[in-house]
């Protein structure tokens, strides 16, 4: 295994950020990028695959439960899971034509969220809606993950979405189209990683993720840094 | 009046399969006769409307019931009311024989109608009704196909070698039935067959087809006494004499027929005295003698006159006139010299009574 590139399994929503991180890690030495192979998928899928012995060296999950579970089960990793990012929920309503309070009061269209059963952003969104965030709870359209929820709005089929800030930043959505609910109103979306092998490149990346420069990149991508909180 | 007049043109690619004028009499059976590959099946198919327009450009069919085919127009087969008995039967394989019949019965055209039971009886299908077509023998399938076409009450019935797979007994029975249907229901029919015997028992008109063209079209009687035709088609040559029943001789199992002033004895038939009877006289069954023979097994000697003589490759074909009707004899050149035959000369024709054939019920 140590021969080839390190295989990094990453939750799809973090893929773009991870690629930026790898670039930063490689720094002036572009060939180092070739030491990494990024495999993205849903956290559940990657988890099932790792359980079945998939040859991954590092797993960046979209939640903290599954890395914990892998660790608890034993046999997969002697390493502890570590948080690497904390998700930020954003309410995106591209066709907003009123101040946010009015929008929250009057919104009665379809709202896209990720599947709460599968995705931590979905679960968080679901809690937020139960608060309630809106005066009347809108019809919820569930995507498999935040990306699908994003696409529902993007294609014009849903009018709003409760998704991750990271996506909106990546898609360069103007700031006036989204609203960031207070982080106290929804559970923490801690994204944890777990090292699965001793592949040197994987170890390097794992260590890099905890460095301030990496955390800066992560923050710039729309996440909060779990380290800053500690 | 004719049932239809047509100009038929069928092409496969650039190859013409059919290119001929065609006319069908309103009454009676027209036999279509010609060698393998002449275009008989193709002709029936155009009439039935089964050949798509792009292959029949130039065809025109005007029937008694309206235009069937013209420059731009093609009347769908299901609208023509034409029944077709296929060379290969084409029974519907997923339903039983009885269901095949009711399928046709439910969709009857406006031609003469036969009842289910009659059809089943005529074609001896009683024990086969619950069978699926795959479980029929060749002859059984052919009978079922005929039955299906007839029960459909077509205005015109086309039959493509419908008796080819039948044994002699079944063939005879069905020919008799078809004859009855012809006279009782006045259903016009076109009959394709390679068996001249069948043709002559059933047909009123004969059309000969070769290389996609109708080369002759005539009443049967005209054809069978045409010496040129006979010369050409000696194997086919038979003639029909129209006679009347004089009376029966039951103890001898004979029936006496009259042909003008003369009488002919034939194996007993069921027709009533006075009824018309059609006698088949095959050229080969006629022998000529200068004077009647006293003690001979040949019962019938007809006084005739030589109407025409045609020599052909060592054989002489003699057209005989007898009471205003005609029939033929085929004798060797040697016999002709022996008898010193000349046109106009009286002569006696011997016909074996047993050789006579009539379409009604009869013994073999």
């Amino acid at each position: 295994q140590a021969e080839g590139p390190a295989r990094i399994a990453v939750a799809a929503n973090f893929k773009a950020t991870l690629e930026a991180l790898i670039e930063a890690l490689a720094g002036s030495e572009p060939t180092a990028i070739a030491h990494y192979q990024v495999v993205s998928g849903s956290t559940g899928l990657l988890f099932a695959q790792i359980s079945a012995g998939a040859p991954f060296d590092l797993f960046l999950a979209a939640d903290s439960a599954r890395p914990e579970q892998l660790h608890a089960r034993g046999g997969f990793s002697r390493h502890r899971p570590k948080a690497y990012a904390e998700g930020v929920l954003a309410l995106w309503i591209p066709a907003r034509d009123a101040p946010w309070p009015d929008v929250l009061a009057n919104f009665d269209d379809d709202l896209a969220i990720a599947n709460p059963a599968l995705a931590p952003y979905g679960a968080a969104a679901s809690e937020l809606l139960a608060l309630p965030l809106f005066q009347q709870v809108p019809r919820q359209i569930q995507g498999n993950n935040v990306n699908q929820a994003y696409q529902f709005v993007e294609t014009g089929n849903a009018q709003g979405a409760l998704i991750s800030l990271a996506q909106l930043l990546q898609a360069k959505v103007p700031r006036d189209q989204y609203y960031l609910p207070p982080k106290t109103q929804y559970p923490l979306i801690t994204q944890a990683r777990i090292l699965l092998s001793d592949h040197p490149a994987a170890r390097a990346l794992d260590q890099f993720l905890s460095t301030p420069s990496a955390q800066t990149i992560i923050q710039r991508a729309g996440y909060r840094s779990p380290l800053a909180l500690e | 009046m004719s049932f239809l007049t047509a100009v038929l043109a069928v092409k496969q690619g650039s190859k013409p399969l059919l290119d001929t004028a065609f006319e069908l009499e309103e009454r009676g059976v027209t036999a279509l006769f010609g060698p393998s590959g002449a275009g008989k099946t193709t002709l029936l198919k155009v009439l039935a409307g089964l050949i798509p327009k792009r292959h029949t450009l130039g065809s025109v069919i005007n029937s008694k019931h309206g235009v069937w085919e013209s420059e731009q127009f093609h009347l769908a087969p299901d609208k023509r009311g034409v029944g077709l008995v296929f060379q290969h039967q084409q029974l519907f394989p997923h339903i039983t024989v009885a269901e095949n019949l009711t399928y046709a019965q439910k969709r009857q055209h406006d031609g003469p109608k036969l009842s289910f039971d009659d059809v089943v009886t005529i074609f001896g299908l009683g024990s086969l009704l619950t069978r699926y077509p795959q479980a029929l023998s060749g002859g059984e399938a052919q009978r079922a196909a005929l039955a299906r076409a007839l029960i459909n009450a077509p205005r015109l019935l086309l039959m493509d070698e419908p008796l080819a797979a039948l044994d002699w007994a079944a063939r005879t029975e069905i020919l008799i039935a078809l004859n009855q249907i012809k006279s009782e229901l006045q259903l016009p029919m076109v009959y394709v067959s390679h068996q001249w015997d069948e043709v002559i028992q059933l047909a009123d008109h004969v059309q000969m087809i070769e290389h996609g063209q109708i080369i002759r079209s005539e009443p049967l009687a005209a054809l069978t006494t045409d010496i040129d035709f006979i010369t050409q088609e000696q194997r086919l040559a038979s003639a029909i004499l129209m006679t009347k029943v004089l009376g029966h001789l039951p103890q001898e199992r004979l029936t006496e027929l009259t042909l003008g002033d003369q009488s002919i004895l034939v194996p007993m038939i069921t027709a009533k005295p006075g009824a018309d009877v059609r006698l088949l006289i095959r050229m080969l069954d006629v022998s000529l003698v200068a004077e009647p023979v006293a003690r001979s097994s040949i019962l019938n000697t007809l006084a005739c006159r030589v109407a025409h003589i045609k020599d052909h490759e060592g054989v002489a074909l003699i057209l005989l006139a007898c009471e205003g009707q005609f029939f033929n004899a085929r004798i060797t050149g040697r016999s002709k010299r022996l008898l010193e035959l000349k046109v106009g000369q009286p002569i006696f024709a011997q016909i074996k009574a047993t050789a006579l054939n009539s379409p009604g019920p009869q013994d073999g």
Partner: protein
Amino acid sequence: MDQDLITLGTSIRLAGLTTLILAVFGTPLAWWLARSQSALTAICIPLLALPLVLPPTVIGFYLLLAFSPQHFFGAAWLNWFGTSLAFSFEGLLLGSLVYSLPFYIQPMIVAFKEIPAALLDAASTLGAGWFDRFLTLILPLSKNGLLIAGTLTFTHTLGEFGIVLMIGGNIPGETRVLSIALFDYVETLNYDKAHLLAAGLVGFSLVAMILIQWIAKDRAGLNPEARR
């Protein structure tokens, strides 16, 4: 498991309607494709198989684009029916129809190509018009094809979830189908429920298919057994 029952209902309704609609509209289309001499068919047959080369989710995405009121089709639909297609059962149905079309049509083309033209000719001389022939000959004679096309369509629509998820939005009682539920259970490591649901689905399908096969059993002996 209550939820699952509702979901099962949606699934069966979706698969059933898809199969039914394809049977009604796909059958004549397949006939045309199988029998037409037109050069068009040479393009149409591959064209209709094309949805298959794209992953269902991707098709779902493109359908979502088409359904969007910003695009012509979605706008027109909204205009006519007053509701949007996305995230509705109708939209789901439309998506399933697009994706399942090849599974229905292709076996039917095979079946239709084999029907002897002479039998149809025979029926037409007997006075059976086009529709009559279609009902009384073409359909019964392609029973095997219908059975298999129907089975493929039904089972595949039951199992499909990529498109369904994308254009349905997983709304309980409306667009949440069994395949998504099953997928959820597996993804959330809820294996016991997953096994139960999978076993139920498989068992139900197996019984249904065997039953249908038995009902449609070949009683005419149109099989290799046929002696002529």
